């Protein structure tokens, strides 16, 4: 049997979920030298293009038009999509800005902050448009499995990976679940 091909995607989030994945330490090394091939992963590899894979793992919430576009492409390229972390599963802390008006947020950050001199909200075509409301991954595309946590524990991620390698859609047992 060939290696399972896995890609990861990082939308609007803090990268903590990817760090938790790295926190598998030796277990990750073992997986990578055995059953798993990481194809595209922003912090780990240099592959830029979406390539068809068996499993796609996505961290972060959908906060910009670019997030949405990337997510759709990613979804099209993976057989199973796994959302990891509270941002991907629920919207998480990235969605906390939904309690405020988008323009209020942008204006605070780029104009009103005390250290800013001559501020303006970046609006050129080089920066993607910010969505009015931050959404969970499952609100945009179909998701096969959710592994919540902020971040999910390495143990929960390892469980999910092992289930996937066994050909099952992981459903995290209640005793491994954590939203913090």
């Amino acid at each position, binding site marked *: 049997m060939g290696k399972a091909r896995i890609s990861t995607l990082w939308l609007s989030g803090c990268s903590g979920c990817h760090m938790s994945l790295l926190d598998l330490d030796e277990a990750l090394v073992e997986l990578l030298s055995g059953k798993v091939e990481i194809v595209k992963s922003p912090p780990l590899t240099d592959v830029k293009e979406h390539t068809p894979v068996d499993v796609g793992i996505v961290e972060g919430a959908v906060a910009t038009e670019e997030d949405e576009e990337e997510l759709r492409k990613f979804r099209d390229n993976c057989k199973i999509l796994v959302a990891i972390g509270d941002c991907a599963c629920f919207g998480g*802390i990235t969605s906390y800005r939904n*309690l405020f008006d988008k323009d209020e947020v942008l204006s605070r950050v780029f104009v009103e902050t005390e250290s800013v001199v001559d501020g303006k909200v970046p609006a050129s075509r080089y920066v993607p448009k910010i969505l009015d409301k931050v959404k969970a991954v499952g609100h945009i595309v179909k998701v096969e499995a959710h592994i919540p946590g902020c971040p999910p524990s390495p143990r929960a991620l390892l469980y999910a990976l092992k289930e996937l390698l066994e050909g099952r859609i992981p459903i995290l047992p209640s005793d491994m679940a954590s939203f913090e």
Partner: protein
Amino acid sequence: MKEIRLKIDGREVKGKEGDTVLDVCLANGIEVPTLCNLKCLTPVGACRLCVIEIEGEKKLNTACTYPAREGLVVRTNTESLNKYRKRMLEFLFAERNHYCMFCEKSGDCELQNLAYKFQVYNVPLDMLNPKLPMDSSHEYLTIEHNRCVLCSRCIRACDEIVGLHVLDFSKRGSRTMVTAGLGDPLKGSPCIACGLCMQVCPTGAIFDKFSSYKFKRKDCEKISTVCQECGLLCPIDAYTKNGNLVRIEGSNLDDFRVQLCRLGRFDVIYGKPPRILRPMVREGGELRERSMDEALKLVADRMRANFPNVICVASAKYPNEILELFKRFATDVLGTMYLDSFDGEWSRAISRSSQGSWVELGHFVEEESGYSIGLSKAPYGSWEDAECGFNDIQRADCLISVELGFKVQNPIHSQIRRAVKGGAKLIIVNPGDDPLGEWASIFLKPSRGSEAILVEAISRAARGRAVDLEDVARECGVAPEALRSAVEILRASKRCIAIYGAGLVKVGGSRAVSALFEIAKEKEMVNGRFGIISIKPSSNTLGAWRLMVTSAEGIPSQKGKGPRIVYALIGDDDSIDAKFLSNLKPDFLVVQSAYRSPATSMADVVIPATTWLERGGELIGQDGRRHLARKVLEPPAGVVGEAEVIAELSKRMGKEIPIPRAEGIGVEVKGR
């Protein structure tokens, strides 16, 4: 109660008539999820998580409100019920802003635990993300509306247990909020900071802002003990982490004793002054820090040079073990006659009152000729056994409350409020403001110092003795009509309970106590006891009395020959009146105290002492029963336990006394 039989999830189970289906489930170990139910509160069926299927009924019912009855067939755990429950949880997550990652309650949250149980790992509904306010105006409690699931536990607890009903719903629909008054901030509301709402809150909607991520049950050690702030000795769970106290909760979630007061729940953690950590010795008029060895040497030298002319006074906040040791030190090592507790005056007054004398005689005495004052023999009976418990307050049809004197509102106030809500009449006698003022049928506010006369007059009039009420009213500065109404209420009452604080005893002594007791004697017994409750000034007043640490006669103020040495064991007792010590005219004053106070500034030697959290032992509480307190914390570095200090002093005095074994063993209480 009649036993009934039901079938739940295919199992034959038993319940009692009057149980709800949920009661029967819980009693039989059948787990039914719920967010709004608590045994101590009236069920309301608000969260809809305890839905069940009843055979023969088409709709789903809530187990917490459905009365169990003979022959009922119930299903609690079907796939469709669980699907329904999961959907309910999803609604809750979609409706408000549940950001577990920065919620103080995460890990201890009932909503979160249910989400784990039902594997709510995403929410397939639109998240509403409403922007709701957070009320952090209160000194300790923050209401975070974003995390509220509208279960109404806090509202019910504040109403049904605390009797205040500070909290209730405001607004409608999904914008419904739990607020004080009409959407007012908690600060400025009648909230008494008892913190019960926080304890019953299933989510992080009501939390203590200062505990800031220090408290998570799984990281803490839980010690079940009693709060020693006052004689109520409320059962508490003290949570410590790394040897630091982080949270205190009421242990008994099943009934009203779960309520604590702000002293016991919050102030004990956040409101205490800095501790005395090193012994101090007066040199050239100033207290200077010295080593324990130097301080004890000085104390032992002075005591040795002057004994038996040493006066030993202890706070009755100490448990029996330490009081007993203190007594042995005084009698066996120093050989002094002068031993007392700081609240001795109170105990002596009660013991000399008719309340005290009656019990000593052990039978009913109809006294025609007034009060039995000034008995020559000290009443070594258990006069406190005459009193009913504060749990009995609900049984009274009339309550007379005389200057309770608590620093903050506590479960006794709640009990009185609940009794009033249940129809009891409340008469208050208090020269000052009274927190229960607005609950009173009659609030008599006599001029300060005249409360004893007023009480005596009421007692006489209520018992049909001749009194010129007009005259008394004028003397005491109360409205004559109010006084007459109070007397009428008392006369009409069948089961009356009089509750009095130390203030009355101080002003009126045994005479005033007798006056109240005489009323109680004429009324029906309450739960086999008299309708009288004295609020004891310390957490172990009765222990000190029974152990005879409290002197029966008091300490004579005239000095004998030679310098007078006073050894005051104060600990963390903040009710000590420094005048008490100055009246003893000490030539050399040794104070063992946890905090700086007027007493320590008078002292010649100050030795650090423990607080109640740092010592265990047996106490005899407000209710006359023994309670075992467990040690919650180790004393801070530099503070040596009282037992060790006394033992060391004894050794230096040339006589070793055995240290009573640590907490949990107790001492044999001999004497009174």
